């Protein structure tokens, strides 16, 4: 690990200003992803601004009848909140499908959104990677790409966004609230939060330098059956090959988003009108623009089958 200086910020605006002031500074929340990457020298911050004292660890009801989830609410606390389990069950199910109990106790809501890809070429510092080292090339294209993206990818990078929680947040039309170094706040629709990175795969989100996530908001509950199916190489504690988050109503209508397939949670709202006609009708539209590799073409069929399983569970 490279040496760094460390401070604890006392307010969100102060934290944002502290990171903006020092080149090489980064926010530190739970640290479960950042410290791992620092040990591998994939991340080499020279200054860490620890945000744990910012009191952003509450879940409150909003005036609109939704929930406002503080950026530092731990994954376990979010999944366990009875309002979430009852009204936004897909979010609880997505969170507990990810990582391990130990990691979920430490990982935060904002940190989970910002977790970086698990592409093996990103992790192996002997390999070229445009995300780790812009301009160095992509080892995954033409390499071993079984786990990697099938849609929304580019000629510079075919990595995926690896998380589960954000797939449920995308389905639920969440917003990401932030404060910038000047103290200005904004609310980013989750669908615009993770970028389709094109030829700048090192720029993964729409956050500006020093901009700090303060909360994630959920609109009012939408009812329906909440389901999250995750297909992976072992039954627990593994990243998704494909995951499906869905809310399905008794008449078969609903919403669906996919994880493990793209640089961001993948949802095509226009395809959702096809939900009453079955999984194939939906995925034909959702993955119409897919550009799989020979290694990961299987994900397309897997996505259809996983959605069919979700639909069957909703009917049961």
């Amino acid at each position, binding site marked *: *690990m*490279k*040496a*760094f*200086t*460390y401070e*604890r910020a006392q307010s969100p605006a102060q934290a944002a200003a502290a990171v903006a002031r020092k080149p090489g500074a980064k926010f*530190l929340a739970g*640290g*479960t992803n950042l*410290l*791992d990457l620092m*040990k591998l020298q994939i991340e080499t911050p020279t200054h*860490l601004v*620890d945000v*744990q004292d910012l009191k952003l660890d509450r879940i409150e009801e909003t005036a609109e009848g939704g929930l406002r989830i503080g950026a530092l609410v731990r994954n*376990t606390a979010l*999944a*366990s909140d*009875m309002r979430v*389990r*009852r009204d936004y*069950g897909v979010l*609880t*199910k997505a969170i*507990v*499908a990810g*990582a*391990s*109990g*130990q*990691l979920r*106790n*430490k990982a935060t809501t904002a940190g989970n959104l910002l977790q970086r890809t698990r592409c093996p070429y990103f992790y192996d510092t002997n390999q070229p990677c445009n995300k780790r080292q812009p301009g160095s090339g992509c080892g995954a294209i033409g390499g071993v790409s079984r786990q990697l993206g099938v849609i929304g990818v580019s000629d510079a990078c075919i990595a995926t966004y690896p998380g589960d929680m954000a797939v449920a947040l995308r389905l639920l039309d969440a917003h990401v609230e932030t404060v910038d170094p000047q103290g200005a706040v904004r609310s980013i629709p989750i669908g615009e939060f993770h970028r389709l990175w094109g030829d700048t795969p090192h720029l993964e989100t729409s956050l500006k330098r020093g901009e700090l996530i303060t909360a994630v908001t959920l609109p009012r509950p939408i009812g329906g059956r909440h389901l999250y199916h995750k297909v992976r190489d072992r*039954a*627990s*504690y593994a990243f998704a090959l494909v995951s499906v988050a869905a809310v399905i109503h008794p008449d078969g209508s609903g919403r669906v988003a996919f994880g493990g397939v793209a640089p961001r949670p993948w949802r095509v709202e226009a395809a959702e009108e096809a939900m009453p006609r079955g999984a194939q009708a939906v995925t034909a539209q959702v993955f119409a623009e897919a550009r799989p590799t020979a290694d990961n073409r299987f994900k397309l069929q897997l996505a259809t089958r996983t959605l069919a399983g979700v639909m069957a569970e909703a009917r049961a």
Partner: protein
Amino acid sequence: MKSGDAFGFSRRGVLVGGSAAGAVLVHAGPVQAAPAKGDVPVTMPVSLEVNGTRHDLQLDTRTTLLDALREHLHLIGTKKGCDHGQCGACTVIVNGERINSCLSLALQHQGDKVTTIEGLGTPDKLHPMQAAFIEHDGFQCGYCTPGQICSAVAVLGEIRRGVPSHVQEDIVAAPAVSNQELRERMSGNICRCGAYSNIMEAMQHVAGESA
């Protein structure tokens, strides 16, 4: 620096001297001796309450909670398996919740209450989970065991508090202490010797007694 004295230039001290955090142990003189340019080690104070005792330490900012426990406080019950959050050998209980101590900086734990395997029980007065691991043969080599036991104790607490899991049929209902539940909740603890089924028996035993 006082924390390095007990081991001095022992084999352990020399071995860890190869790592950045261990440099503090080896260079008993000036802490920032001959730093590489642009990579100057920085130390900061932190106090931790470990197994009921307060410790004031001056640590390289890079020191993980795991290395603080093992290399500075010499509580070597907690093990380093992967150092990357993948194996669970380093599991300790912080403020009542289990975490991977390898993926946390010691500085993040200012004032926190840390319980390690040494704090759960003693050879004379074992924690019920430790006794159950012995009775049910919940280990072979024992390397993963401190992490397994800390995790197991915390898992039963999580089930009591109603923390939901991936295998729960109804996420609004209270979770049960079933074999399936325990296996899912313990998936962050890897055992190279494959003692899993006996670990499950030990946990069932303790859960049954406290139910």
